[in-house]
């Protein structure tokens, strides 16, 4: 990248390269647009539902007369809109674009894939409405009723097919590490969803087996669907933006296969102390401990790639979000492994601590990475530019501060809640009273995060409005565009704000 900046006119080979990339980006436009725009829509809906749920926890009278807005419905509606609407749709957009770029082929199925975006939305609308109307399953992370499978099953089948087509047609024979994660994600998730739904909802399954399947599924949605997409983005964007290759190929290999082998088994740590066979719990704990291997491997690999390149954080919005996400990945994984230890689990299980942990994973890690990916991908597929650096900054700081407050408040409250709960002399209502102020500060955090999302939504709205306007040539033909452009944008914003 550095070379091309110094060079006013790219060499012919390079130019052909850039043209190919532009064509690939063009082929992704409709599909990625639909998935990303919908993702942002669901992010807003999910944030709103989150705020309502959060307020209800410390103001129980708030909107309490409406059955469809009772806490026990708004909370799963929040979870499912952000997981299946926001996170998954953003993930599919990123996954398809990354795979096309890395295979150097155009995105196949130009009609069918955008249609799956619409069907996916219909699935989320259906499922969320069902939850609010009382048809949810109360099976955590699988609250959409069984017919939702028809929507997502169809879309996922098409996406798998597209992924296989790209794999077979690919022009690059080296399989970059991001690709492994993407292959994993797209095969794991459909399998998990079908098996999880079947085992938790079908008649004649032993109740304990239902509980195990429930947590095998729920834990793996994060671990084998969102995590690999997030890590694929981190592995792609950190080298891309800094212009440095990934530190170690062998570490990448080790990190991937250990994740694939161990993450699967960790889910049952959600059932420690529960009515399941002791060996199943032990396997879950061992799996969680083994997760240190891929996590530390990935952390070293990313850190070593970033060393000396941290100044890019000032200029590149993509890198800011991606590095925030990648660092949170290490944090959330280490925390997850420690939480699986019996002595720590005895305190933190069943408390707000777990909620904080989940948000560290899905938000501070995954969602921040998804934002970073969108900041990179959307200008390329839409051929336009982000309209306002101050808004990007607002997005970053508002969400960053929000999730930090969220995490600290609920982690602290959860630990205290757990300690009080394990002391039978503390009356239960004293515990409730203790947590209320912390739950209120969680609402403040939620407002901050929602504000950031609103800023982001405005940016996305504008970049769609400007589609095709500001970038007449193929994406990278103007060499100054890649990062000096960002720098100008940022320094201009800096002058305005300071």
């Amino acid at each position, binding site marked *: 990248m550095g070379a091309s900046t110094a060079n006013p006119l790219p060499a012919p080979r390079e130019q052909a390269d850039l043209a190919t990339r532009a064509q690939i980006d063009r082929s992704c436009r409709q599909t990625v647009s639909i998935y990303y725009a919908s993702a942002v829509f669901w992010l807003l809906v999910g944030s709103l539902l989150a705020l309502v749920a959060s307020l209800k926890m410390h103001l129980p009278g708030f909107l309490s007369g409406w059955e469809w807005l009772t806490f026990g419905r708004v909370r799963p509606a929040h979870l499912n809109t952000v997981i299946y609407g926001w996170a998954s749709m953003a993930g599919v957009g990123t996954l398809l674009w990354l795979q096309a770029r890395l295979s150097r082929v155009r995105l196949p199925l130009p009609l069918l894939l955008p249609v799956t975006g619409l069907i996916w939305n219909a699935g989320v609308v259906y499922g969320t409405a069902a939850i609010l109307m009382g048809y949810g399953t109360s099976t955590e992370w699988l609250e959409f009723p069984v017919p939702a499978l028809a929507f997502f099953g169809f879309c996922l089948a098409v996406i798998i097919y597209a992924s296989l087509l790209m794999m077979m047609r690919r022009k690059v024979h080296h399989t970059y590490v991001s690709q492994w994660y993407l292959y994993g994600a797209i095969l794991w998730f459909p399998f998990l969803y079908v098996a999880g739904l079947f085992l938790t909802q079908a008649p004649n399954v032993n109740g304990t087996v239902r509980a*195990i399947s429930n947590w095998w599924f729920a834990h793996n949605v994060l671990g084998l669907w969102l995590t690999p997409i997030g890590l694929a983005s981190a592995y792609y964007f950190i080298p891309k933006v800094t212009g440095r290759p990934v530190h170690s190929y062998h570490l990448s290999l080790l990190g991937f296969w250990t994740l694939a082998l161990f993450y699967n088994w960790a889910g049952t740590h959600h059932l420690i102390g529960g009515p399941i066979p002791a060996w199943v719990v032990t396997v879950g704990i061992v799996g969680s401990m083994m997760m240190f291997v891929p996590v530390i491997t990935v952390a070293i690999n990313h850190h070593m790639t970033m060393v000396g390149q941290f100044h890019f954080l000032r200029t590149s919005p993509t890198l800011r979000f991606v590095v925030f996400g990648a660092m949170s990945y290490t944090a959330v994984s280490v925390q997850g492994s420690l939480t699986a230890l019996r002595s720590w689990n005895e305190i933190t*299980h069943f408390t707000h601590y777990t909620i904080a942990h989940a948000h560290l994973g899905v938000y501070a890690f995954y969602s921040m990475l998804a934002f970073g990916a969108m900041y990179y991908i959307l200008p390329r597929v839409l051929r336009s530019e982000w309209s306002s650096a101050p808004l990007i900054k607002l997005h970053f700081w508002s969400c960053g501060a929000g999730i930090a407050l969220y995490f600290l408040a609920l982690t602290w409250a959860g630990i205290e809640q757990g300690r009080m709960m394990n002391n039978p002399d503390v009356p239960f209502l004293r515990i409730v009273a203790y947590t209320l102020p912390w739950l209120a500060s969680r609402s403040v955090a939620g407002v901050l995060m929602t504000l950031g999302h609103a800023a982001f939504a405005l940016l996305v709205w504008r970049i769609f409005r400007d589609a095709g306007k500001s970038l007449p040539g193929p994406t990278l033909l103007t060499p100054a565009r890649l990062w000096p452009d960002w720098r100008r944008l940022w320094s201009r914003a800096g002058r305005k704000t300071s």
Partner: protein
Amino acid sequence: MNKSLLVYLGVLFTVVASLSGLVLVPDWQFRGIQPYETEDGIRYPQPLAGSTALGREVYIDLGCVYCHTQQVRPEGFGADLDRGWGNRRTVMRDYLFEPRNLTGTMRTGPDLANIGARQPSRDWHNLHLYNPRITSPGSNMPPHPFLFTVGGDESRRPLGATPLPAEWRTPGAAYILPTSRGRHLVDYLLSLNKSVALPEAQ
């Protein structure tokens, strides 16, 4: 090409392995579990039926599981037993006929595995569900007024209605009468009782 295919197959293998190990093996290992027959000839557990089964549907559709667990941790692991949430830990057999996983992961409220034994008063549950702060000042459990109709004329209080305590009365509200869903839900709560002594839970 071949290498990518290997990755595809490899990742499929990992997830099939964990499904088999964590879910199918326990399923097969415990296929034969049967209800326990006590000395007095009681078979435990029994599948829920009638109103209690309908009540479980209400418990599911209102999302009580997001604040309440239904599992008692063993002696020496948490204070579940000392808090009186049960007289023994819960085990696999307790959940033999559960059509949904309601064991739960969150205790914003107390465990309910034995609430029927712990709080057998129907009137208490009516008042508590109608507005938890009537029975439990400071509670952050949501009120469920939509499970009740309210009547103002004390002299015409129907059977099955619960009078409101004096300080909660207003001109239009002297008693609350559960709707059919409200009645089913309380029937379900009153049925929650895992106190039968099981050999494996000793």
